[in-house]
């Protein structure tokens, strides 16, 4: 499974988001490839899911094929956990 963590530039907050996602996945004992990316590059990378903020989510909606999951606070593990669980559920359907 490949997951993108996206922010405006792909260097700062997306890296933090990625660390959070990885932390949650590790708790759940799930292996996945998580990459941090900027908005534009994210459009061109094939992946299974995209995690980003509500605003950027709106921005890229329709331009990417993967499902987008939004997180308000990138470091809020509770919030990230909810989003990750949602993704896992939908992927299993």
């Amino acid at each position, binding site marked *: 499974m490949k997951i993108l963590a996206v*922010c*405006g*530039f*792909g*260097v*700062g*907050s997306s*890296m*933090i988001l*990625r*660390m*959070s996602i*990885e*932390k949650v996945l*590790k708790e759940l004992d799930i*292996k996945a490839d998580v*990459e*941090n990316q*900027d*908005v534009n590059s994210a459009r061109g990378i094939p992946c299974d899911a995209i995690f*980003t*903020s*509500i*605003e*950027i989510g709106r*921005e890229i909606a329709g331009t990417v094929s993967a499902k987008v999951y939004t997180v*308000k*606070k*990138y*470091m*809020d*593990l509770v919030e990230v956990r909810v989003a990750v669980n949602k993704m896992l559920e939908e992927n299993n359907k």
Partner: protein
Amino acid sequence: MKSRQFIILNYITANEGVQLQKLLNKFSISKRTLYYDISNINKSIINEGIIKNVEGSFFYFGINENHSCIQNDFVDNVTLRKNYVLYHIILGDLPTISELCTIMDLSKNTITMLIEKCKIDFLLLNLKVTYKKKYIIEGDEHKIRDLFLTVIENLNPHIDDIDEDIINLDEQMNLRLTDFSRKFLSELKKLIVKRIKMGLTINELSYQKEVCAFKHYHACKMILPSSASENEVAYLCAYISSLPTLNTEGTIDRIDDFIDELVLKFEQKTAIKMQYKKEFKVNIKRHIQSSYYRIKFCFPAHNPILYDVKMKYEYLFLILQKIIKNSTILPEFKKIRDEEIGFITTYFGGYLMGEVRATQNSRAIIVCPNGYMMSKTLELQIYRFVPGINIIGTTSLSKLDDVIQEYDYIISTLPLLAKKEVIVVNPILTKGDIDLLLSIFTDIGIPNPKIDIEKLIKTVEKYSTVHDYKKLETELLKTIHQINENERYQPMLNELLTENRINSIDSVCDWKQAIAVAAKPLIDDGSITNVYVESMIENVIQHGPYIVLADYFALPHAGAKDGVNQLSMSLLQVKNEVDLAGVPVHTFLVLAAIDNSTHITALAALSELLYEEKNLKLFQQGSVSEIRALIEKGN
């Protein structure tokens, strides 16, 4: 150069065109030994000439035909001297002081000092040294053996004098050991036999049962005296499995899983995204595969660049150490030695610093006058030390011209005249060789210590007037240092968030002002320009408040290029809540990155801090000194 080699050299010089068979008969040595001797001779006389084999006859080409003044190896090599003495003390056959004076061409005083120094080495290892007609070393038997194995690796072994039993064992069991492996094994056998005779034997061996099942276990039993305990047999047997061989089959199943785990955990811990993962895994697999048994059975590894690696990649080394020691897939790596972690660190370090330089430029071919065996030994060593190298093949000198593949460099143990891009190395790579290879094949060459500042200043002086020698010297050193260090060093969080970069104010008029005030220390010291501040604000306007990573904590940042002069961070705490596009914030941490990896160390440390509620509170409400203390602690 050994005395026999010296005689051979003089013989060839005196008898131009002497034939191979004649030399073999004259000195009653094997072909392999002769070739090895000649390669050694050629290395010693590198500045004067060379012995060449022209269609089966040997000639000397060079300027000086009188080789009486050739230097004794011991004269200028302190390590060699010490290892020589250690070797003979452990074996209990140290020559007398006056004999040593002759062998090493040193004064009595120097020799006595040397022996004293060696005794201190034993004491430091908690080993007891007694002298009753000969030296006897007692204590932890494993430590004694480890020291011995390290010493023989450092002695630049001459691969003659190999135990017959070892050759038979090798051939019978089809182990295909390299020349050096055979030599080391002969030495170890010699030691074991001596130790057993003295009643000093290995009492405990954690892997004894496991090793019994190895296919060469019974053969090992045959080559040791009948009084050897099961432990001793198992020890020798385990050692054999740890040696480099030419056999490539027999992979260990879990290594792929281990490497996956290693890379995954590494990425998690550092938040580094490895781009050429597949290539990297192939590379490192080759290394781990060949060292698996050595690591597992805890045999010492010779890593002359360990110290440099630890200095240069301190953080990386610690991370990898933690990951490897806690591996669930290869728990046998728990007791891994620092030397081994050093090798693995070189791989990761090479990957990160060099971003794997396009392999197109670094295809190498190994050439050895002694043919396949020697070049294979060299190949194994190069894989161990130089990550990302692409060795396209090995060949003997005579067949070099038939090679059709393209290559960029020739790695050889002899200078090859009339060939370009030849890298000459020793058959057992020295630190200098490794530095050389690293600097050629990756961007991570260890700073060349040989740069002579004095000479440099003299050159400058030739064309200009120097007003301040001391200052010029420091500045030059700084410049050289920087070039080598590159900007790729990954600073820690506390190195970035220094005291003057953490501030606190009561209120601001809006979030834009907050970002500007937060960034001010960086503008002041030239780390960033106003362009970057504008980009950070623009980013929020365009993409919304996603930079608020946790409650009341924002990470303003923008793209890596515009307006950033150097990687930097600054922090501003605003006592009165600030509204950032609808989200309340107290703390603004400005991040100015120069690329997408050097800030990872610091960012990873920060995120670990922020996952804890009480730290988040401290960032909102704590004093500047409390925040500073937290950051110091969080590294």
